[in-house]
């Protein structure tokens, strides 16, 4: 039963089979563009106050949701994590009812990204409240706040578009703390009359926050535990997959299966092992962490290259050096790129890192490639 409810809700918010949410959207568009015919394709559900002259505010349609996460939701989360249809995991912006809220029930604000919305509604299961969904173009709260789409303008607009003023008495909004980089609380108060309260960082702390209306220091701190790091590895892997495959195939024909395996190992080390071991690798800079991990990963390869049937001209040593130059460079570069996925690297710091280490990585990758190419040419021409 609850499974069914969840399914209906998802449909209603995303695909809107009964036209409810689409209706609302059309109305607000009609209001903005003024003369365009409002609610053109509205099927059987005519809303009285949705007049087409563009002057009457549209009737506020409030969606109903449950806190149940269905199989479909989980599938959607899974696909999101693997980067399928990257920006398509959205829900309709607007106001939603969770449970049976009264005019005194809290209003919780979130982004129109399914992972964010589902986290909020499942955390608040059993709590009667309103959820105000901002249009963040299917991007999570923190990134949207950084870009400004989860911002003061959108919040103020959404408050008036949903007619929130006439729905709740308290004029208070609970915002996610991580939305703060996009919101100026005092500006929201000045422009809309709504008081902004910053709730906890994590949606799962919302019930505890709503009970006391104060956040403990733990609720305010962002952490990056193993689980949070591991859920990011699929998408890291997906992004690196194609170039890696190309490099592996190239290396297979130029230098043999071991070199191809080396390329794959370097990428796996940078995209999966690095996030997993992030806090355990010494040094603070991501590049140096990546270099350390890369050297460790390259070592077995270097050893087996060096241990190949002895050749007088030191070709094996050259192959080993190539592995020790190339693999750590790749791993370090991937590690440096992981900065964007963490919740603690500053722009200044990342910039410092780029200037400090990217030249080194480039030199390592360049000399390693030159060495590998030289070996490949020697091999193909039959010199060795």
């Amino acid at each position: 039963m609850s499974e069914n409810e969840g399914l209906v809700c998802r449909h209603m918010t995303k695909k809107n089979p009964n036209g409810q949410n689409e209706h609302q959207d059309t109305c607000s568009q009609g209001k903005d563009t003024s003369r365009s015919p409002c609610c053109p394709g509205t099927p059987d559900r005519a809303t009285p106050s949705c007049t087409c002259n563009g002057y009457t505010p549209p009737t506020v349609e409030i969606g109903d949701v449950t806190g149940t996460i269905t199989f479909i939701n989980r599938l959607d989360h899974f696909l999101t994590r693997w980067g399928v249809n990257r920006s398509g995991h959205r829900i309709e912006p607007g106001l939603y009812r969770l449970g049976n809220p009264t005019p005194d029930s809290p209003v919780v604000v979130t982004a129109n990204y399914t992972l964010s919305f589902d986290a909020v509604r499942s955390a608040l299961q059993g709590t009667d409240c309103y959820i105000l969904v901002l249009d963040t173009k299917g991007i999570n709260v923190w990134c949207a706040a950084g870009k400004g789409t989860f911002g003061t303008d959108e919040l103020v607009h959404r408050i008036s578009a949903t007619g929130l003023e006439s729905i709740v008495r308290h004029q208070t909004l609970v915002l996610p703390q991580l939305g703060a980089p996009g919101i100026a609380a005092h500006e929201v108060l000045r422009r809309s009359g709504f008081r902004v309260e910053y709730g906890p960082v994590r949606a799962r702390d919302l019930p505890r926050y709503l009970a006391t209306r104060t956040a403990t220091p733990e609720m305010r701190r962002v952490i990056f535990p193993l689980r949070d790091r591991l859920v990011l590895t699929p998408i890291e892997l997906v992004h690196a997959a194609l170039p890696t495959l190309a490099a592996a195939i190239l290396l297979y024909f130029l230098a043999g299966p071991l070199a191809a395996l080396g390329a794959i190992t370097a990428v796996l080390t940078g995209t999966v092992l690095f996030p997993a071991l992030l806090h355990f690798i010494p040094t603070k800079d991501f590049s140096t962490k990546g270099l350390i991990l890369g050297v460790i990963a390259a070592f077995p390869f270097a050893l087996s290259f060096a241990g190949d049937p002895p050749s007088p001209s030191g070709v094996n040593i050259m192959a080993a050096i190539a592995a020790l130059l190339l693999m750590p460079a790749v791993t370090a570069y991937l590690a440096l790129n992981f900065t964007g996925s963490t919740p603690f690297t500053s722009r200044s710091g990342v910039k410092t890192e780029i200037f400090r280490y990217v030249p080194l990585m480039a030199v390592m990758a360049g000399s390693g490639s030159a060495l590998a190419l030289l070996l490949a040419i020697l091999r193909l021409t039959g010199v060795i």
Partner: protein
Amino acid sequence: MVNFREVRQNLDEKKKLSGFFNFRRIERSEVRGGEGRHQPAFDSYIENTLRYYPERCFNCRRCTQVCPHAVFEEGQDRALLARPEACMECGACALNCPAQAIDVQSGVGCAWAMISAALRGKDMDNGECSCGDGENSCCGQRKEKAPPCC
């Protein structure tokens, strides 16, 4: 007679010269001495653009609420800059400070976005350059390759 409005404007415009109070440097040595876990040579994250002008603070405590790294701490009369080296330059404190007592060049600490910007000849410091799929984002041209930071 002193024209206070003018003085204040001057202060706002040239805050780096007048009224500049850099707690960071004082705190930094303490933090470095206290932690001692990492060599500064391997820590690019000690320096950041966070600046705090405590004389403007009227203790509304917003900064202590919005910072996800407890950079600010509640104080008796004004907020205290407790862990400046932990600042990730998200800009939440500065934006939410009604007294403009905090200044930070906010931006996304994403190497991918910055390197892409540099490679395409764009300004690395451009605030519009961030990850995601917006028109202004550096990753916008290759949507499917947008970094996972969003």
